[in-house]
C-alpha cells in the first residue's frame, strides 16, 4: 500500500507529542527557570483564550470586547470548585462543584424550556386574540405582563428546581464517590470536571448575553460587550458579598496549583483540533458565510442569528477553559486581571497574528507573552515601555498590515483539507452549459 501523505490527524498528533515531550523534558531537567516555565504555560493558556476570540472576531466577524469577562468567569468558577475540594470553604468539599453545576444546569434547562415555549409566538397570538376587546396598547401591556410572568415561573420552577436537585445530588453523591480514591487521583478528576464546568458556564453565560445584542451593528455590539465586561468586573470586585472566599478586591487565594504542562498541552491540543474540525465543516462554513455577507447568507437559508450566537458562545467557552487553567497556574485571582482593558490583549494577539488564522493567533499569543515578559529584562527606567509597545503594535498592524502577519493562512495540520477535483464520469459529456468558460471572460 502506497503512503501518499500522512492523514491530518496523524500529523497533528505527532506534532503535539513531539513538542509536548520536548517542553516537558526541558521543564523537568531544569533547563528553564520556574519563571520561564510559567511564562510558557501562560502563553499557551492565552493562546487558547485567543482562539476563542479568533472564532468570535476572525471567523464570525463579531467585534466583541468583553472576552476577559469570560476568562474571569472560567477562572473563578473553576477555582471555587477545586478550592472547596482541596482546601474547603463551604463546609462540604463538593460545595463549590454543587454550586457551579447547579447554576449551569438550572440555567441551561431554563433557557431550553423558555425557548421551547416560543414566547414570541405566544405573545403575538395573544395580542391577536385580545384585539377584539382591547386597544393595541392595552393588549401589548397585558400580553407582555403574561409572558413575563410565565418566564419567571418557568425560570424559577425549571431552573431553580433542577438547580436545587443537582446541588443536593452532587453534595450527597460526590464526596463518598471520590473520597475513597487516593488524593492525587481525586484531585485530578475534580480538576477535569472544574475545567469542563468552567468552559460550559462561560459558554452558557456568553450565549445568554449574546441574545439581545448580537443583531446590533458592530459599534453598538462593541460597546454592549464592553459594558458586559465592566459589569462582570464590578461583580468580581464585590463578589465577596455573595461568596466570601472570592475575597473581591483583595484577591482570591488558596487555589490548588493543579495546572501543569501536560494539562496545558492537552487542553491546547484539544482546543486546536476541535477548532480546526469545527471550522472545516458545514457549520463552520455557515459561520464564515455570515461573516462575509450576512444578508446573502440569509438568502441561502442560513439562520444568521443562530450561527452568530453559536460562534459567540463557543468562543466564550474557550475563554472559560483558558481561565480555568490560568486560575490554577498562579493560584491567585484578582479582579484587575479581568478588566475590559484585559480584553484587548487577545485582540492584539489575533490582530497581530492573523485575523481568521488559528496558527496566526497562536503565534500572536506567544509573541505577546514573550514581549511582555521578555521586556522585563530591560533596565528599570524602560520597564514601563512594555505597555507602550503593545498598543503600538496594534496601531502599526492596523495601519500597515490589517490582516495580521499570517492573514488567513495556516500551517501544518491546521490547513484546510484539500478537495480533489471531480473526475468526470466515463463516457458522459460534462454538463451542457451555454456560458462557456474563461476564454470569453473580461
Amino acid at each position: 500500500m502506497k503512503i501518499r501523505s500522512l492523514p491530518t490527524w496523524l500529523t497533528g498528533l505527532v506534532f503535539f507529542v513531539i513538542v509536548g515531550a520536548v517542553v516537558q523534558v526541558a521543564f523537568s531537567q531544569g533547563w528553564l527557570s520556574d519563571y520561564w516555565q510559567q511564562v510558557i504555560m501562560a502563553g499557551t493558556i492565552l493562546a487558547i483564550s485567543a482562539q476563542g476570540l479568533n472564532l468570535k472576531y476572525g471567523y464570525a466577524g463579531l467585534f466583541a470586547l468583553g472576552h476577559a469577562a469570560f476568562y474571569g468567569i472560567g477562572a473563578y468558577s473553576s477555582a471555587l470548585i477545586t478550592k472547596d475540594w482541596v482546601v474547603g470553604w463551604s463546609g462540604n468539599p463538593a460545595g463549590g462543584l454543587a454550586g457551579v453545576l447547579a447554576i449551569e444546569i438550572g440555567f441551561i434547562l431554563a433557557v431550553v424550556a423558555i425557548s421551547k415555549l416560543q414566547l414570541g409566538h405566544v405573545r403575538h397570538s395573544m395580542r391577536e386574540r385580545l384585539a377584539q376587546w382591547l386597544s393595541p396598547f392595552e393588549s401589548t401591556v397585558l400580553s407582555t405582563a403574561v409572558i413575563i410572568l410565565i418566564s419567571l415561573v418557568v425560570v424559577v420552577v425549571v431552573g431553580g428546581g433542577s438547580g436545587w436537585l443537582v446541588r443536593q445530588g452532587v453534595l450527597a453523591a460526590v464526596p463518598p464517590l471520590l473520597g475513597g480514591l487516593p488524593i492525587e487521583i481525586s484531585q485530578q478528576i475534580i480538576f477535569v470536571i472544574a475545567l469542563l464546568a468552567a468552559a460550559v458556564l462561560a459558554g452558557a453565560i456568553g450565549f445568554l448575553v449574546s441574545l439581545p445584542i448580537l443583531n446590533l451593528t458592530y459599534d453598538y455590539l462593541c460597546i454592549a460587550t464592553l459594558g458586559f465586561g465592566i459589569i462582570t468586573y464590578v461583580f468580581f470586585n464585590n463578589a465577596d458579598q455573595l461568596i466570601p472566599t472570592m475575597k473581591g478586591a483583595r484577591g482570591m487565594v488558596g487555589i490548588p496549583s493543579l495546572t501543569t504542562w501536560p494539562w496545558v498541552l492537552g487542553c491546547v491540543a484539544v482546543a486546536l483540533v476541535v477548532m480546526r474540525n469545527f471550522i472545516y465543516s458545514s457549520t463552520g462554513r455557515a459561520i464564515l458565510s455570515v461573516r462575509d455577507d450576512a444578508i446573502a447568507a440569509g438568502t441561502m437559508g442560513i439562520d444568521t442569528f443562530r450561527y452568530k450566537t453559536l460562534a459567540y458562545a463557543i468562543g466564550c467557552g474557550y475563554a472559560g477553559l483558558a481561565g480555568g487553567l490560568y486560575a490554577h497556574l498562579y493560584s491567585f485571582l484578582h479582579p484587575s486581571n479581568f478588566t475590559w482593558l484585559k480584553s484587548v490583549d487577545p485582540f492584539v494577539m489575533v490582530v497581530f497574528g492573523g485575523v481568521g488564522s488559528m496558527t496566526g493567533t497562536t503565534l500572536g499569543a506567544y509573541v505577546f507573552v514573550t514581549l511582555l515578559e521578555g521586556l522585563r529584562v530591560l533596565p528599570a527606567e524602560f520597564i514601563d515601555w512594555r505597555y507602550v509597545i503593545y498598543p503600538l503594535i496594534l496601531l502599526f498592524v492596523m495601519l500597515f498590515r490589517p490582516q495580521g502577519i499570517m492573514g488567513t493562512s495556516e500551517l501544518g495540520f491546521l490547513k484546510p483539507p484539500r478537495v480533489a477535483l471531480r473526475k468526470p464520469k466515463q463516457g458522459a459529456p460534462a454538463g451542457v452549459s451555454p456560458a462557456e468558460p474563461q476564454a470569453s471572460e473580461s
Partner: protein
Amino acid sequence: MMAQSDVQNPNPGDNSTVLKIDELTKFFGGLRAVHDFDVHIKQGELVGLIGPNGAGKTTIFNMITGIYPVSEGTIAFKGQDITDMPSHEITQLGIGRTFQRIRVFRNLTVLDNVRVAYHPHADYGMFDGILRLGRFGRGEREMTERAQEFLSVFGMEDLQDTLATNLPYGAQRRLEIARALATEPDLLLLDEPAAGMNPQEIVELMELIHFIRDRFNLTILLIEHQMRVVMGICEWMTVIDFGQIIARGTPKEIQNNPRVIEAYLGSQATRMVD
C-alpha cells in the same frame, strides 16, 4: 429534501400560481417607497420587473426575501403566506435570489460558496463535524460531490479552489447565480443580472437564463433596466415608477406604452422600438 432535478422540460400541465403579491406597500419613515404593488406569477413563467433607477424594484425583492419588513400588503408563495417571514425560512421554502451588487462570499472558495447552500440540508450535525465521525465523512463527501457536479454545469469546476474575491467579474456573477440555484429554489429572483456586462456577455446571460429555467424547472422573476435583456427573454413584465405600477403586459405592449416611454425619458425608449 428535494433531489437534484434533472428534468429537461418543465411540466407543461402545472399552471399553479407560484408568487402572489397583493397591495404591497413600504414606508421608510415618511417616505413611501412602494405603493400598492401586486403581481401574480404562475409556475414556469419568466417575468420581468422593470422601471427606472430608484423605482423601488430592489425594495420589492427585499420584501419578498424577508430582508425588509413589509409595511402593508401580503406576499404568498405556493399558497403559503410568507409576509415578514425571516430570510432563511423563505429560502428554505424555495425562493432563491441574486443581488444587484454581487454578494458572493468573498473569502470563501468557489466550492465553499456552493457548499454553504447545502448546509440547511446537511446530513450531519455540529458534533459529528467536531469529532469527525463517520456521518461527517459521508455527508461531507456527498455535499462536495453535489457541489462539484453543480459547478460543472456552469463550467466552473476548475475554479473550485479559487477564492471568490479573486474571480473576474463575469465569473463572480455566474457564481452568484449558481449559488442561488444550489439552494434548489422553485422561484428565482434575479436582481439586475446583466449589470456591468458587455453585449457578448449579455447574450450568454440570456442563454444561461433560458437554460436554467428549463433545466431546473424554475419560475423566474427578473429585475433589469437594460431593455435588450428584458425584451429578449421575458414573457411579460410589470413596469413600476416611483414605487407604483404604471404598466403591465407583453414586451410588444410595453414597448408601445406611452407612460413607460415617458418614464424612461425617451432615450432608452427609442432603443426599445427597433
